[in-house]
């Protein structure tokens, strides 16, 4: 887009597009929050590659879309058969299904949540002006301008509240289905966990093959002291879809936040995953993988912000790039003054399998405290020739050997996922893309 009139352009668009019928439109603070957020977005418009944080993410095609207004009419529900094929599991989960950004009660099975657990649709809560802290929509929570756009247009999402001490054994499973041409979807998930609570949340974004959707999602997690949250995100959007998302956690003393991110589908997938370790003795883990082909691009921009003493963070990202795909890892670890005895380690490893593929990696450390142990490492390379030879010498054909090595390389990240259904789905998806993957499946 031309730089000249970013603001004017978006202001004009706002008049046409900030729809008056979004969730909570009758609640003054919600309306104000949306308009203020739109102002913030409009002031800058879509980022360009001149913005350092978007150096490797080209949104120019996206910015040319005719409309960004959320589709406000829930489409027809997908067929039962299709749903079953997409779904990780219907058993052993608290299921909420969203179709083109709107909660679908008839497809969902929240089950018996037990005492101390509340799981609801955000749109419903906003409409009823149910108790939600309005500051969740404040600018301080925005890490990118797309987060502001989400606040302006939020369609729906899940709100999970856990009373102190609640241990939710069964994972919460949020399935987002996108279908149809050119829809814009703005999911907003909010997880508020009281002291000592524990839960696992899965976000699964599934797009039909031809869906040209644009998803701009935000997930906020507030972890009180002693909380443990595992957040798993699987992006399996259609091959023409844009998926841009923020996952932002804030951790109080002694909490543990584990993020798992798997980018396996979509034209452009970008996740900005951040955690602010506000209290002492926090633990933060970020695991991720991207396995790309064709002209896909997947970006992970992570930021682990150690604000208090004795925090631990471990980050492990792996990427495999084939075809003309591009993988971007931009991981930052900040250790603020006073965050003594921080122990942070970050690693990003990539395999480039094709001449047209590209990897850009930018592991960063910003350290302002001295009693710390921080390391990072990044590699780009090929499969280990010695390992290949070793396998071949045991009679395994070269192609299978290669696939096995790629599988092993990625499995290091996959096996950290705490939900077996999700693990096996990801393993299947990985193997489906590898030559001889079928025969490896038999070995498992």
């Amino acid at each position, binding site marked *: 887009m031309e730089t000249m009139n970013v603001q004017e352009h978006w202001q004009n668009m706002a008049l046409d597009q900030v729809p008056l019928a979004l969730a909570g439109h009758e609640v003054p603070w919600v309306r104000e929050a949306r308009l203020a957020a739109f102002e913030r977005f409009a002031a800058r418009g879509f980022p360009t590659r001149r913005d350092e944080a978007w150096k490797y993410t080209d949104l120019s095609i996206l910015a040319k879309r005719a409309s960004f207004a959320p589709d406000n009419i829930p489409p027809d529900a997908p067929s039962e058969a299709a749903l079953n094929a997409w779904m990780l599991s219907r058993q052993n989960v608290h299921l909420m299904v969203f179709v083109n950004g709107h909660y679908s009660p008839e497809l969902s099975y929240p089950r018996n949540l037990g005492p101390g657990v509340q799981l609801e649709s955000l749109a419903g809560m906003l409409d009823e002006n149910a108790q939600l802290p309005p500051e969740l929509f404040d600018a301080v929570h925005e890490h990118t301008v797309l987060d502001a756009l989400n606040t302006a247009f939020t369609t729906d999402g899940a709100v999970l509240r856990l009373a102190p001490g609640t241990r939710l054994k069964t994972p919460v499973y949020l399935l987002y289905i996108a279908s149809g041409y050119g829809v814009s979807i703005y999911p907003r998930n909010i997880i508020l966990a009281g002291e000592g609570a524990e839960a696992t949340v899965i976000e699964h974004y599934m797009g039909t093959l031809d869906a040209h959707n644009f998803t701009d999602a935000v997930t906020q997690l507030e972890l009180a002291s002693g909380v443990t949250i595992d957040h798993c995100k699987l992006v399996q959007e259609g091959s023409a879809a844009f998926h841009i998302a923020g996952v932002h956690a804030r951790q109080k003393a002694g909490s543990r936040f584990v993020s798992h991110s798997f980018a396996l589908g979509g034209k452009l997938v970008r996740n900005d995953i951040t955690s602010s370790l506000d209290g002492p003795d926090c633990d933060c883990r970020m695991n991720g993988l991207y396995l790309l082909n064709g002209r896909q691009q997947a970006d992970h921009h992570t930021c682990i912000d150690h604000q208090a003493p004795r925090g631990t963070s471990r980050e492990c990202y792996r990427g495999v790039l084939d075809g003309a795909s591009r993988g971007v890892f931009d991981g930052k670890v900040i250790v603020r003054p006073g965050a003594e005895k921080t122990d942070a380690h970050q690693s990003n490893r990539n395999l480039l399998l094709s001449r047209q593929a590209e990897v*850009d990696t930018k592991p960063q*450390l910003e350290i302002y405290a001295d009693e710390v142990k921080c390391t*990072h*490492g990044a590699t*780009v390379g090929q499969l280990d020739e010695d390992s290949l030879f070793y396998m071949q010498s045991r009679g395994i054909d070269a192609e299978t050997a290669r696939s096995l090595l790629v599988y092993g390389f990625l499995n290091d990240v996959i096996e950290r996922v705490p939900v077996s259904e999700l693990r096996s789905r990801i393993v299947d998806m990985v193997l489906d893309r590898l030559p001889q993957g079928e025969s490896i499946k038999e070995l498992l």
Partner: protein
Amino acid sequence: MDAANRQLDELISRDYQHGFYTELESDTVPLGLNEDIIRLISAKKHEPEFMLEWRLQAYRHWLTLSEPHWAHIHYQPIDYQDIAYYSAPKSGKDGPQSLAEVDPELLRTYEKLGIPLKEQEMLAGVAVDAVFDSVSVATTFKDKLADLGIIFCPFSEAVQKYPDLVRTYLGTVVPFTDNFYACLNSAVFSDGSFCYIPPGVRCPMELSTYFRINAKNTGQFERTLIIADKDAYVSYLEGCTAPMRDEHQLHAAVVELIALEDAQIKYSTVQNWYPGDKEGRGGIYNFVTKRGDCRGARSHISWTQVETGSAITWKYPSVILRGDESFGEFYSVALTNHHQQADTGTKMIHVGRNTRSTVISKGISAGLGQNAYRGLIKVLASADGARNYTQCDSLLLGHRCGAHTFPYIEVKNPDAQVEHEASTSRIGEDQLFYCTQRGISPEDAVSMIVSGFCKAVFKELPMEFAVEAQKLLGVSLEGGTG
């Protein structure tokens, strides 16, 4: 640990040794920058027309640029109209023809800095070009080098004597469009060193330029161009100092290195510009563009730098690995103390096949110092078999300083192998206790540990410089055996 911190503070807060000012009559142009000033500088240097044209082009382009602000540094805005862009000691209007004509006061200045310019007193095996403010005041061993066909002379002399060589190579590695500071330098650069090593010649001595900023309110904008023709070898050293002043002074240099087939250039810097006082007053703003071009197959360029001075250091000595099987290296020690800020690193651009690069960076932060490594490893689709290994380590001394690592890795070739490792730590209590338990004082223990930390870089420096560098870090060890 406090003992260690205190000690290091003492070690590196020793007063700046080169802060004196030499009373000399100087010929300084009026403050400010415009086309007339550029014409004046060019006229003072009796430059051929092409040089003036090039400068003016650069100046016009500079007017379209704005100061970059992406680096992890903070400073008051620089007023580019409040700087004198040329200052020269008055003695010998057209520059001294021999050492006998050099103002004795100047010679004394260099002696005081530990750089005797009289050849009989010099360190054998080091030829020196001494640049004082805007001009080169002396070049030693010129004749001896000329016998081998080696040209080593002030840049201004090269422009007159070897215009074709200058014209062929100037700006081919760092074009004036490259960046704000390089562009400014192209417009106003006053002097620097020029060096050409003919094919097959191995330069028998270290070539060295010693830069000294003396005059007040001046900027120093030197330009160095080194060409190693086919199968030639040269090792080049650069040293810098400046007087202590309360105001900041700008230094914006450009260094271009060109290595043709099988040639090797080794470029070492010990940068000790005045860093400012303990409160952050004064000090040099050091915005430098250094780049080497491995133009020929199997060529080899290696940068080694020890950066202890300057209030702000902004430099990224880089190598473009164009020739097949060419090799680039970058070894750096950067120390920031008090209010010093450094944003330094390298770029290794792999273009040719089987190109290799190695990057070793050691940052030490103390006091309120901020030290950032910023590097780019770029492997283009053409660079089959490219290899890079990068290691960046930071050592923090004290809890008010910062150490940052911003590496960029961009790989477009599936046959490339790129490996980056970084760590940040402080001197461990256990390390310190282990040393003191062996009777070593905490001071010596810190020195020893810091020097061990920097060892991988120091060993790349020529002997004389390695000693100087250790001293600068305040970590010299009595009789320490390697």
